[in-house]
């Protein structure tokens, strides 16, 4: 049976900065914990310990990333478990979070309805910050001034993972050095350059990043309920093992070469 946000006891995890590989692993481990019923539905806010390019599950490593430029800038390249496009991350420049929900929350919904449902609270939060934003199919969060962020969803067992990265600030020149963004990708966007496609939250809100996150968490708490939680030792151990034996290995990173 379909459930609703308030049917669940939502938990918040907001840890100190963690390395990119551990973030990839935590998404898999926590989705599986929620699927198994061992963890209540959870909102996890990410803090990045170091810069990264995160490519989607089905993206070609070679086609998406200029490996030489990434090395030159000390940027780690990692692959996540969900589809979607590459993200360019520098600590402090993005706001990233994951929602780990039981599949019942999106049961019977189309992909599009399910993205809209999962993004609704953050659209409301942005509205309270004075930004008129909306979910733009297939998986963007957009505003009058341009794209703010993107979501990716994947369903695993009895759970759905919905994670979002929003641009807070961005070094567009560096991003374009590291990511290969082709003309075909931009063909139906009606814009001339990739840099112009993103308008970050910093310029739109004038608020520090921490304040934007605090306001977002408040909005989630008010709409859906939210209790403060932390990673359990077993969850962290499982994620560290996944980071080492799966996400940190060449076969996973180059699974789509």
């Amino acid at each position, binding site marked *: 049976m379909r459930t609703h946000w308030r049917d669940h006891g939502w938990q918040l995890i907001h840890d100190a900065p963690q390395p990119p590989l551990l973030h990839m692993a935590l998404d898999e481990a926590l989705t599986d914990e929620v699927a198994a019923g061992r963890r209540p539905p959870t909102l996890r806010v990410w803090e990045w310990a170091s810069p990264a390019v995160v490519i*989607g*599950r*089905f*993206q*070609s490593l070679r*086609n998406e990333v200029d490996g030489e430029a990434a090395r030159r800038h000390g940027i780690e390249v990692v692959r996540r478990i*969900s*589809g*979607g*496009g*590459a993200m360019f991350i520098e600590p402090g420049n993005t706001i990233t979070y994951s929602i780990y929900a039981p599949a019942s929350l999106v049961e019977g919904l189309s*992909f599009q309805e399910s993205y809209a449902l999962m993004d609704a609270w953050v659209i409301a939060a942005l509205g309270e910050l004075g930004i008129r934003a909306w979910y733009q*199919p*297939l*998986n963007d969060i957009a505003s009058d001034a341009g794209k703010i962020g993107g979501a*990716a*969803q*994947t*369903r695993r067992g009895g759970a759905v993972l919905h994670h979002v990265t929003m641009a807070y600030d961005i070094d567009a020149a560096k991003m374009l050095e590291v990511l290969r963004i*082709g003309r*075909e*990708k931009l*063909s*139906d966007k009606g814009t001339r350059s990739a840099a112009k496609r993103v308008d970050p939250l910093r310029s739109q809100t004038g608020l520090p990043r921490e304040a934007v996150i605090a306001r977002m968490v408040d909005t989630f708490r008010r709409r859906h309920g939210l209790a403060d939680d932390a990673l359990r030792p077993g969850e962290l151990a499982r994620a560290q093992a996944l980071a080492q034996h799966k996400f940190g290995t060449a076969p996973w990173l180059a699974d*789509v*070469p």
Partner: protein
Amino acid sequence: MHGEYKMPGGKLVVVDLDVRDGRLAHVRLSGDFFLEPDEALRAIDRALEGQPADTGEHALAEAVRRGLPADTLMYGISPEAVAVAVHRALRPETA
């Protein structure tokens, strides 16, 4: 050879391939689409492998459709979009 296609309102669908003895070889699909289960990606590669290089788009799309696991979910990609990307890889001058 390399072909890219973004369906209107969809995601980027990329195909890299070779042609050997008139047939598709080393076919590799990639892109920023959403596809479940994970194995569907390789299933599509396998469905295209060995197809005659002069196969029409409609027949290629049908081959992809037949090769998909029964419970496959696609978002931002379709068998037709894959077929267009294959054709663009084979005939870059028409892309």
